[in-house]
C-alpha cells in the first residue's frame, strides 16, 4: 500500500468498532436462542449444500462480476494502480473508495452473522485477528500490497489454500506453536513473491 496516510484508517475504525462492541450489553456475550431458527440456519443448515458455503460462493460471484465486468471495477483497478493518474482521468476517487469500504463492511457484517450463528452466541471479543486471515488469503491469492493487482478467482484460491492449511495442520496434529510459524512463513512467501513480481515489472 502506498504511504498516503490513508492505510491506517481501517485499523483505527476497527479499534473504535471493538470499543462499541464492548459497550454494547456491558461486554457480555449474547446467546442466540434456539427459537431464532432463521438466524441459526444461516451458519448451520444444509439446504442444497452447506448454507455458509453457499453464501460465500454467492459473495464471490457478485464481487467478481462487479470487479471484472463493470466500469466500477475498472475504476477500482485504476485507483489502486495509480491514484493520481486516476484522478486526472476524471474518476471520482472519494465516491469509489467509500463504495469499497461500504461493500467491505457489508461483507464483514454478513461474515459476523454467520460466525455468531455457528457459535450460537455473539461475543464482543469475537473475530480477533480475523482481518489478518483475510489479508493472508488475499495476498496468497495474488493481490499486490502495492494496489491495482489482484483478481477474485485468485482470492478464492487464496482463501481455500489458507483454509486447507489450517485444517490440514490441525488434522495432522501439528503443535499449535508450529502452526503459527507455518502460517506466517506461507504469508511471508506470498508477500515475497509479490515483491519479486513488482520488481520484474519495473
Amino acid at each position: 500500500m502506498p504511504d498516503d496516510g490513508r492505510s491506517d484508517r481501517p485499523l483505527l475504525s476497527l479499534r473504535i468498532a471493538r470499543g462499541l462492541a464492548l459497550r454494547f450489553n456491558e461486554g457480555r456475550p449474547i446467546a442466540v436462542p434456539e427459537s431464532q431458527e432463521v438466524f441459526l440456519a444461516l451458519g448451520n443448515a444444509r439446504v442444497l449444500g452447506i448454507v455458509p458455503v453457499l453464501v460465500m460462493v454467492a459473495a464471490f460471484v457478485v464481487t467478481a462480476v462487479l470487479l471484472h465486468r463493470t466500469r466500477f471495477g475498472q475504476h477500482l483497478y485504476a485507483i489502486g494502480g495509480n491514484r493520481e493518474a486516476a484522478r486526472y482521468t476524471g474518476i471520482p476517487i472519494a465516491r469509489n473508495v467509500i463504495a469499497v469500504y461500504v461493500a467491505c463492511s457489508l461483507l464483514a457484517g454478513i461474515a459476523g452473522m454467520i460466525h455468531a450463528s455457528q457459535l450460537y452466541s455473539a461475543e464482543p471479543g469475537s473475530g480477533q485477528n480475523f482481518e489478518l486471515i483475510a489479508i493472508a488469503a488475499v495476498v496468497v491469492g495474488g493481490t499486490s500490497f502495492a494496489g491495482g493487482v489482484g483478481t477474485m478467482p485468485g482470492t478464492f484460491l487464496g482463501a481455500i489454500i489458507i483454509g486447507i492449511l489450517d485444517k490440514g495442520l490441525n488434522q495432522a496434529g501439528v503443535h499449535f506453536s508450529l502452526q503459527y510459524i507455518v502460517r506466517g512463513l506461507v504469508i511471508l512467501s506470498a508477500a515475497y513473491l509479490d515483491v519479486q513480481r513488482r520488481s520484474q515489472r519495473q
Partner: protein
Amino acid sequence: MASDNIEAGRLAAEALAKVNPKARVVILHHSVNKACIDRVDGFKRAISQHPEITILDTQEGKGTTEGGRPVMRDLMGRFPDVDAAFPINDPCALGAISAIESAGKPGKVTVVTVDGSREAVAVIKAGKLHSSSAQFPRQIGRAAAETIYEHLAGKPVPNDIKIPVKLITRENADEFLQSL
C-alpha cells in the same frame, strides 16, 4: 489468590470417569495461561488413576468459543471415535459443543469443563454439557479484599490462597443458579 484450578481439573476428570469410564478424550488447552495449565495438570493426574480412559491429544482451543469450535471439529475428523472432551473453560466448551452439534454428534461426546458461567449452566440444563467445575469469583474478590486489609493491618498473610471449586451438573444446576 485464585480458584483451586488443580482441583477443578480433578473434579472434571472424576465426573467424566463416572459417566464415561472408557472415555477417549481430547483436551482443548489454553496453554499460555497458568490457571489453565493447573486445570490440565489436575485433569491428567486424575485420569492417570483410570487406566481405561485414553487421552487422544491436547490441542490449543485458546479458551474462546471461536477458538474451540474449529479445533474440536478437526479433532473429530482426526479421531472419529472420540467420545469425550475437556475444554479448559466454559467459552471453549461452548465452541466445542457447537462443533459437536454441527458434526451431527450431539449427545455422543461427553464434555466436561471449568468455570460455572450462567451461559454454560444453561447448556448443562439442556443436557449438552455434562459438567463445569464452578469458580466463585465473589468469594475470590471478598477473600482478596479481606487479605489486603489484614496485610495493611500488619498481620502475616499466606502467600497463596486457593478458593474451593464445586462441580455443577444437571442435578444441582438450578440450585447453583439461585445461589449466584
